């Protein structure tokens, strides 16, 4: 599977990703730093104190020096700088720690999304034009029409408020509570993150399955006397997965985006919560750092999708 060509391809892609990440990071850096009123903004600081802070963050230097220093820091040491709000907090370790939390929730959401989407899509396709299909296709529109914060709210309402006393502590969101890190708590936010996308995966799988079921090789499989479940899973689904794989890139982007809201609602101290918080706190340095991280994640996810194609479709070689 891992031929020489594939390895070269992966290498090229990683270089490309690195450059993309740097470009995105630069654009955000330059965009933010040419803002009027400096990058450092605070009503409480005056005079010398303010000057000192400016100097501490090298914000009194010309923009191109700041940019050069920033870029050198990122490239040579992976250093994203220091938080503008919480002085002394280094961004790179902070962001990496939060990334592991977000990745855990995101991975659950991804598994949930793909699993549920595939199952529903296959069922709808196999039962095409029956009430099952009709109900599933209609609910899938409802599914991707519900903003994730609405789903999160409903989940909280049901599990935290109405069933609250029995499941106290069984979800992230507690007033005054916080991260406790147990797997058992992960499925509520994962569900809220993944549900809209599960509907999209389901729709895509259904369409793709319907296309595949009409193919000649499915007829061949039937003529061989294979069991219907074997035909659907081994022969139809394998092929139906090929177009579905395309959506994995946007899916990862969607889960990253969704996490900005969901982590806030459920009080998960991950990258998304940090991003939203930093925007509201006007902590530009963290905004740039988190966004850089996001660009890298999307790049790696897209590379993963391309490699997945190779696994699913033997006709594809790089």
């Amino acid at each position, binding site marked *: 599977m891992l031929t020489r060509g594939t390895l070269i391809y992966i290498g090229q892609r990683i270089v490309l990703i690195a450059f993309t990440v740097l470009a995105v990071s630069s654009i955000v850096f330059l965009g933010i730093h040419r803002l009027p009123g400096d990058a450092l903004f605070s009503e409480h600081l005056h005079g010398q104190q303010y000057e000192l802070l400016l100097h501490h963050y090298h914000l009194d230097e010309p923009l191109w020096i700041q940019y050069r220093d920033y870029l050198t820091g990122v490239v040579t040491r992976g250093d994203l700088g220091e938080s503008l709000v919480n002085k002394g907090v280094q961004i790179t370790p902070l962001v990496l720690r939060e990334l592991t939390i977000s990745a855990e929730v995101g991975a659950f959401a991804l598994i949930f999304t793909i699993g549920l989407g595939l199952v529903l899509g296959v069922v709808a396709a196999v039962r095409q034009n029956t009430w099952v299909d009709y109900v599933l296709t209609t609910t899938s529109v409802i599914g991707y029409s519900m903003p994730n914060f609405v789903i999160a709210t409903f989940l909280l309402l049901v599990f935290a408020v109405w069933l609250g006393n029995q499941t106290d502590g069984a979800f992230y969101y507690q007033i005054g509570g916080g991260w406790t890190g147990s797997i058992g708590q992960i499925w509520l936010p994962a569900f809220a993150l993944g549900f809209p996308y599960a509907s999209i995966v389901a729709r895509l799988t259904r369409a793709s399955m319907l296309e595949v079921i*009409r*193919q*000649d*090789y499915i*007829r*061949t*499989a*039937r*003529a*061989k*006397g*294979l*069991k*219907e479940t*074997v035909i659907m899973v*081994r*022969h139809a689904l*394998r*092929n139906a997965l*090929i177009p579905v794989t395309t959506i994995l890139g946007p899916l990862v982007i969607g889960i990253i985006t969704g996490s900005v809201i969901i982590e806030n609602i459920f009080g998960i101290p991950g990258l998304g919560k940090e991003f939203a918080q930093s925007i509201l706190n006007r902590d530009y340095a963290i905004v740039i750092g988190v966004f850089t991280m996001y660009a890298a994640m999307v790049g790696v996810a897209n590379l993963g999708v391309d490699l997945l194609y190779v696994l*699913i*479709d*033997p*006709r594809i070689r790089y």
Partner: protein
Amino acid sequence: MPAPILQVRDLRTQFLTDGGVVTAVDGVSFDLFPGESLGIVGESGSGKSVTALSLLRLVPDPGRVVGGKVLFRNQDLLQLSDDEIRQIRGRDIAMIFQDPQSSLNPVLTTGFQIAEAMQAHGKAKAEANARTVELLKRVRIPAAESRVKDFPHQLSGGMRQRAMIAMGLANAPSILIADEPTTALDVTVQAQILELLGDLNRELGAAIVMITHNMGVVAGLCSRVIVMYAGHIVEEGPVEEIFERPQHPYTWSLLRSIPRVDALRHERLRSIEGIAPDLLRPPSGCRFHPRCPFRIERCFTDEPTLEEVATNQRAACWVTMERARREMHADDLLDIRPGAGSGVHPGEQI
């Protein structure tokens, strides 16, 4: 004559389309004898492929087998449960298809797809794998041991069709249905595949049902032939008889449309005039009459049934070629437009 292995009686298959009901196979009956090689010939839309698919209940939506019997070993295949018919498919009756490119699953190895056919009918995995190599050798695929791991896209068109045939033979079926197995292939490869099928038919004793639009294929492989037109059987009989003395004008026209290198006269190759009938609104009387050079008035109104025209040969025609030769000088006819040889001309009636 031995007892037939497959008896088809009054088979009817319909397609429910937006435009209405199309009866693609309309009252087809025939026998298949053990080890024989039967050709079913007709234009596209004649119902020959749907007939083949109906036997194993593989007709795609919106098609339905609506009547008749398919008797195999004293059981009606049309009455079996889904699981019982599944047991028959691939084990007793196997089928291979027109386009090996699209008929093989692109994401599974060729060897796996052949072995799978055996595992579906109870063979152990190791045994199936070993026999797969054997089968590939049998259908003359070179370097069979390494080819089992190849995906379909790595094989040539001819090799793919050989692999399909190997798949069909995997469980040593008593009947092999081949639906236009050579149409999608190069001419030279076509001949090889036909030769292979012929050899297998002789060596393994499996009965072959060859579905084709090509009279040449029938001549090369089959001992008996059924000619279909617009969902009906219009003629059937031994290949020599049919080629020598076709009795249905349609069969006659089909044979005249084969290019012949040994043609004595400098004659033009004739295709059949007119277009295949619209099965949503089939013609009245004999379905071939709008295109028939020898039609008489009765053809417009009455539907002919299959009648014995010679020993073992039957045709569904009010005129038959014997009379057409005698009375309408069929063999001298250069103009084969509808009604040309008869006293009835287009526009005269109906």
